[in-house]
């Protein structure tokens, strides 16, 4: 399964799709990027007159690129061959720098393990200057159903 096919299997759409492209994916990890449009609705309220990308959105962006794209790839290339859905089950993220409207971020995830349908990754987000924005670990269960 190539990167275009993976993107077409993502279950998100605007305004909750936080993946623009995948630069690389293999069985051990994934790299992808996303640019936060200045028009995104949450900037109106987070914060009043001082737009900054919320931590939960950075976490979601890391989950969509690092966990969901990798989970789809791993299940599609497995014996069964059916791309699964990934249910987020835990996150532990440290935040280092703010991400402002219009910034492009790159997410890199490395698989720690994928066993008994659980995918666990170490994950990192960098900004255009190459500085680490946030990093940590993230895990999910790969299921056949969207809301199991």
């Amino acid at each position, binding site marked *: 399964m190539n990167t275009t096919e993976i993107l077409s299997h993502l279950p998100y759409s605007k305004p909750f799709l936080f993946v623009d492209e995948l630069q690389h994916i293999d069985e051990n990890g994934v790299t992808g990027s996303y640019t936060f449009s200045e028009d995104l609705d949450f900037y109106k309220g987070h914060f009043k007159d001082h737009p900054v990308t919320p931590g939960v959105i950075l976490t979601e962006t890391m989950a969509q690129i690092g966990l969901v794209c990798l989970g789809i790839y791993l299940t599609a290339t497995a014996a069964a061959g059916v791309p699964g859905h990934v249910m987020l089950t*835990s996150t532990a993220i440290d935040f280092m720098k703010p991400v402002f409207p219009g910034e492009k971020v790159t997410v890199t995830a490395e698989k720690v393990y994928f*066993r008994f349908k659980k995918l666990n990754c170490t994950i990192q987000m960098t900004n255009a200057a190459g500085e680490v924005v946030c990093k940590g670990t993230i895990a*999910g269960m790969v299921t056949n159903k969207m809301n199991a």
Partner: protein
Amino acid sequence: MDRQLLLSKLKTIVASYSHDKDALEYLNETTDFTKDLKINSANLVDVVLDVEEEFDIEIDNLSMERMLNVSAAIEIIETKLKEK
């Protein structure tokens, strides 16, 4: 391995993922990981991975699916230890 020792090692492992203090304190062979200890399916995987590491055994998919309570876990661990 002695059954009591095995049970106490298992208790130490599940303690990290349990969300019910009382059920953990009174852990016995009838304790159910999900219903009693409130461990979710993702952390159940971590219990199994920790069991593999602690007892130096490998748990297969079928055993994983059966490992829903303390008595099943003990039986599976004892069987795998004998196979070593």
